């Protein structure tokens, strides 16, 4: 680390990466919390979002903004289909079978993406509006990364507001603590399941689109992201937007600095952090209990 400029630049990179992780993880955490299904195809949905955005911008020549709207919606529709055909019909099988089902789905989507988009590394260019850089306090930063940080913040505040101030948020919070009970209270819980799963898919797809110009597209992308999202989930703890947000920022910054300073063991640092958190605070930083005593 030669000077303060690189530190700040890496910090901004880490912050924007953390925001991306937040967008992806909050969808995963919502679905896990309410449906009780750990969606192992969540990373694949993220990948689909990025690839669909690639098709829209590069193959069909539309602008990035069209992709930003269409791609997450496409993924949401895909999530809707998955929920209605596979998950909805298998609630009687139990959660473990459903998790394995999403794992099988990850296989299918992995091969489909390879079939449609090939195994090469692809990339989407940053939209021209944000392609420049800004100078703050005499230092230049890529504008797009700052925008991503802004988007993450807006989304975090929006989700926090929805979860804490609206009727839907109340249902979701209740669902997180006891989904059977709110079914008994007259809420159509199956409908809530569907909406939450589709919302999770939408967030995954949205994350895929905004991440694509930074991280690029390659065949193994879905599990690399899924693993980091799982780590964020464990560190942050279930059931709180704040916890997921804090954990995502920590993991994002740590991963970026790790990659910069000690690339060979960058993943080890993240996992060491997770291990420490699991032993020191079994509930996650801010959340419900995940370990037994």
């Amino acid at each position, binding site marked *: 680390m030669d000077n303060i400029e690189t530190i700040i630049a890496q910090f901004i990179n880490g912050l924007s990466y953390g925001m991306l992780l937040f967008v992806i993880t909050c969808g995963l955490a919502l679905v896990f919390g309410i449906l009780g299904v750990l969606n192992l195809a969540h990373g694949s949905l993220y990948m689909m979002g990025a690839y669909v955005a690639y098709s829209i911008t590069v193959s069909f020549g539309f602008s990035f903004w069209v992709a930003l709207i269409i791609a997450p919606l496409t993924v949401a529709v895909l999530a809707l289909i998955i929920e209605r055909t596979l998950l909805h019909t298998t609630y009687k099988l139990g959660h473990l079978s459903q998790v394995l089902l999403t794992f099988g*789905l990850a296989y299918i989507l992995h091969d489909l993406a390879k079939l449609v988009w090939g195994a090469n590394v692809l990339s989407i260019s940053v939209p021209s509006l944000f392609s420049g850089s800004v100078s703050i306090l005499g230092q230049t930063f890529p504008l797009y990364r700052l925008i991503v940080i802004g988007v993450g913040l807006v989304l975090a505040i929006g989700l926090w507001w929805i979860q804490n101030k609206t009727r839907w948020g109340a249902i979701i919070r209740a669902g997180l603590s006891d989904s059977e009970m709110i079914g008994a209270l007259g809420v159509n819980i199956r409908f809530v399941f569907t909406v939450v799963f589709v919302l999770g898919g939408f967030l995954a797809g949205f994350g895929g689109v905004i991440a694509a110009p930074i991280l690029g597209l390659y065949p193994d992308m879905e599990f690399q992201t899924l693993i980091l999202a799982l780590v964020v989930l464990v560190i942050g703890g279930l059931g709180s937007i704040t916890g997921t947000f804090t954990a995502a920022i920590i993991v994002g910054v740590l991963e970026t600095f790790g990659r910069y300073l000690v690339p*060979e063991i960058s993943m080890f640092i993240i996992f060491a952090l997770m291990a420490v958190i699991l032993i020191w605070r079994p509930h996650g930083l801010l959340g419900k209990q995940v370990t037994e005593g």
Partner: protein
Amino acid sequence: MTYLKFGIAVLLFGAAPFFLASFHISLLTEILILAIFALSLNILVGYTGLVSLGHAAFFGAGAYAAGLIGQHVSAEIITTLLGGVLVSFMLALVVGIFCMKVNGFYFLMLTLAFSQMIYSFIYQSTTWTGGSNGLTGIPTPSLLGLELSNIVWVFYVTAILFLLLYAGISIFVKSPFGRVLVGIKENETRLKSMGYNTKIYRYVAFVISGTLGGLSGVLFTYFNGFIAPTNVYWTMSGTVLIMVLIGGAGTMIGPVLGAALIVILETVIATYTDMWMLLLGVIFIFFVIFLPEGIYGVWQRSTRKWLKGKIPQPELKKVDREKVS
């Protein structure tokens, strides 16, 4: 009866190279190696009720350790086998400490995360493991100075270890220790209340499972002569889990059948298309939804039904109510 079956298996494996072409021997060797891998995972998934999605970490640790020892120390099977098994044993000891702290989905997440960590280490550490190119130039294994250059020798080594492990695991799961593991799967809270320290039992099961997984990795190095990072990837962990589940988790023969089915299917399919993962995903989902008890479970159920029709069932003894009271 068990001894008879075992004897027949020994004879069949012993005679196989005299009847089968080398292509089929190589196929059979691959099946047996992956069957050992599946059997080791079955101790966790089928008998202890812990679904691991990171078993490839141990397979890869064993395989890479054996390959590296073969390159830098000695290609002697005894050395590489012990070395590979020791490395995966140590890995299981460490990973187990963390994974045993959690249950259910969190266990699944942690095992997946740990295996991806091992994968990314292998993938990034190009100086040791060859990175994305894989580990090449592994010398042919030798046993007491005799080079095992022929696939038949590798087959015999594999078959002997397979039979020993199959017998060993069968005895293990029927032992009091194995019964406690099944108890953990069925109702852990109850076992705890009976005074068992279930954490220790789960930890030992995890370590045994990981160590044997490493052993299958070592054998794979002998068989393949080359290790790619994909052998440590999540798809590998998934494939072995599919083998256990479609064969029949919690049975001894199930994982072996599952391994055989998947290996044969992959060999057949590979000649037509490279969309193997797509098909595997479809098979996986099909079994999860429609045949959760696996091939062997279905077979057991249908034969029981068939026997019920053929053999007169023993009538229940009528209890004289007055005598009882």
